[in-house]
């Protein structure tokens, strides 16, 4: 009786684990497939913005890693209305909304101010 109970418990635990893993893997695959678009307006003309995008080093600084280049689905640059600068619309897969916003924010800071802001008090 005890052996049967233990066997059933092991089977149940195994089934639960495999179901969870399947669910997590499906979510991860769905996330990889899902394309999310975010946008930012940069208070500069199109020329420096396009030059930034064409520079691999500067883009890596904004993206946070070289690996993320492969996650870019689409990147659209257009003039913002009312001479407000340039809109950048970035579509990426495999990253969440706030991660893409963070990439755009870093790019905007680098373009507009030349640095990424930080609240740190020490250089290292």
């Amino acid at each position, binding site marked *: 009786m005890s052996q049967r109970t233990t066997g059933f418990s092991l089977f149940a635990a195994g089934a639960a684990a495999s179901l969870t893993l399947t669910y997590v893997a499906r979510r991860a695959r769905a996330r990889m497939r899902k394309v999310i678009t975010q946008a930012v307006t940069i208070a500069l003309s199109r020329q420096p913005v396009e030059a930034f995008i064409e520079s691999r080093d500067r883009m890596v600084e904004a993206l946070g890693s070289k690996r993320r280049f492969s996650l870019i689905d689409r990147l659209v640059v257009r003039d913002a209305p009312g001479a407000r600068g340039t809109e950048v619309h970035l579509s990426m897969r495999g990253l969440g909304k706030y991660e893409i916003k963070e990439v755009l924010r870093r790019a905007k800071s680098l373009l507009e*101010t030349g640095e990424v*802001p*930080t*609240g740190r*008090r020490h*250089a290292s």
Partner: protein
Amino acid sequence: MKAVVWHAPHSVRVERIKDPEIVNPHDAVVRVTAAAICGSDLHLYNGFMPAMKPGDILGHEFIGIVEEIGSAVRKTRPGNRVVVPFNIACGKCEPCLRERWALCDNSNPNADMAEKLYGYSCAGLFGYSHLFGGYSGGQAEYVRVPFADVGCFEIPDEIEDERALFLTDVFPTGYMAAENCDVKAGDVIAVWGCGPVGQFAIRSAYLLGAEEVIAIDRIPERLDMARSGGARTIHFDEVNALDALFEMTGGRGPDVCIDCVGLEAHGRAPDAVADKIKQTMRLELDRAHVLRLAILACGKGGTISVPGVYGGFIDKMPFGAIFEKGLQLRTGQTHTHRYIRPLMERIRRGEIDPSFIITHRGRLDDAPAFFELMARHEDNFVKSFLRPLPVTHREHVFEERTRQELTQAHR
């Protein structure tokens, strides 16, 4: 260096920590020569602002001398005596270019946190939680100032520290609150809260041409200070403020109501009691009793100006009164950078001496005791003036000379 460090609600200590360094190319490190505790620091002290962490350095009102600059700093030089606005602005983004400095796109490194709460992020602030960037504050011997060319304003020699310090926040905040009212000749302005911002709002309203200012508070010494600034006063524990305002304005109501209180309003009305209970139970962030009163008290077609700090979601808001009376609501963090030079010029011309607000002087070590006094409204506390480091002999001689010259000029 020594700094005022937040550990938990009602627990701030002066501690020795590592000096700040240049981190980004546009940074400066400023040796703080004077600092103050702001009324809005009490929201952190009392634990009502989210995203504080033990070890955070407080303080967003400070002036000092530039010690070191980053490689990209062009205008600010070491040795400059500077006033630093409480909000941090890059000077390059669209809001900064439109002089909406408090809405800077680039200065809040934790913008995602603020976006989740407010939809969009506003500028980073010194010493005001990780929601606003997690920047260390100026209640310290040294402070790192990002975007130094935008955020360091040189102080003319003839303006001593005591008259310059309040350009960092409370004077521009009171001034913008009054300016937001579009004061016209004949206007009557009601100001709730006679703390430092309220006192500057009263004086700024007169500077901008208000006919009459009515100040509302319950602390006699603050009401006295308001009267010395030219205001008529209402003690809200002694009379019903709405009835008194109705009578004092001939039944029209004030043309403008300024809420200088913000999220920690006191009161005995049912809504104030409900707010207090909900805030204690962490079901609500803001006690907005004064804002509701201001909306109800304001005359038809009037303006509500809100310099008092609010941080979250407010219920029981009489929005019907705003709509039916056609009120305008003007609010926001102060665009301090816009006001420092014109207000410095008013100080230089002798139109106003902001040092009238100082009631307590001390060293940085006195800050925890001052926080306690402020929180309890004891010892007639209105505003502190802290000296983080002993001033140099040259600075001391300069201050003494200026003070004597001013005394003679007043005679």
